[in-house]
């Protein structure tokens, strides 16, 4: 890979990390909100309930996921403590 290609790859990775980072579920949520908005506009008039609903579910799920990971890590470090 030449120098320009490497720089482009680094730039893409940098933008991905800046915007998405460790929360790829947010990218999926944004795509879902846009897709559902388009679909609902054609077939159903309740976008104002469904769109915020998707966002809220994703936010709550993401926070819970991270909190559970932190809780599990804390428990694991507690069970490992006697070995130290």
């Amino acid at each position, binding site marked *: 890979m030449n120098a320009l290609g490497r720089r482009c790859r680094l730039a893409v990775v940098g933008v991905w990390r800046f915007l998405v980072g460790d929360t790829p579920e947010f990218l999926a949520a944004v795509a879902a*909100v*846009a897709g559902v908005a388009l679909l609902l506009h054609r077939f159903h008039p309740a976008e*104002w309930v469904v769109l915020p609903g998707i966002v809220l579910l994703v936010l709550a799920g993401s926070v819970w996921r991270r*909190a559970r990971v932190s809780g599990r890590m804390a428990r694991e*470090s507690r069970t490992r403590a006697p070995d130290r």
Partner: protein
Amino acid sequence: MELLATASGTSSLVVLVLAVFGASLVEMVEAFTIVAAVGVTRGWRCSLQGAGAAAAVLALAVAIGGVPLVRYAPIDGLRVAVGALLLLLGLSWLRKAVLRAAGIVARHDEKAIYTETVHALKSSGNSDDRGFVEGFGVAFKGVLLEGVEVVLIVISLGASQHRLAQASAAAGAAALVVAVIGVMVARQLSEVPENLLKMVVGVLLTSFGTFWIGEGAGAHWPGSNASLPALVGVFGLTTAGLVLSMRRVVRPVLVEAEVES
């Protein structure tokens, strides 16, 4: 009817100004911490010149990126793209702020950043010329990196509502407020309730993002722009609920583990 339209236009302008001002305030506090650390160790001249140069680059980015978007981009496509960007930024700010408020993730510590930067600059002691260049570079990089998110928010919100000037003015006002308070207290601004601000801005950006994606895709919001404050209320209440539930359910496990280890 005309009165309703004026009221909804005013409410969306208020939310826009609050979102940009709050986001800029949060990022500028972080940038000021670095600028103050450079000023104390390497002198205020190089520190302020570095910060000024970065501010000029950021203003140029808004002019180059924002003005053509406002003038030439098709409004519906622009709103979906801008909404997606705002939703991404807003959700990640909100998630971080909720986790910090619930005590699951450590809070941003301006004092630690200040001490770290001062220590790094002092330990690399060198000649006046190199010291000036190094101080300039650190201040420039700090302001530029912290300002990138602000630029994205200014361009997104300004372009989608054709209010680039108001969005830029709100960001400028926040930078001015931080600079004036910073100079008056002459130290890092660790007393600013940064996490609370981040949470409020996260709620505003998420509301704008959801609103613009829907609007761009052709969704009908009841009362048009007047539904923005309602979205802010829904997201704000949910965020408060999330913080409370996280504190009750997860925090005891973490505290228990800390005590036993």
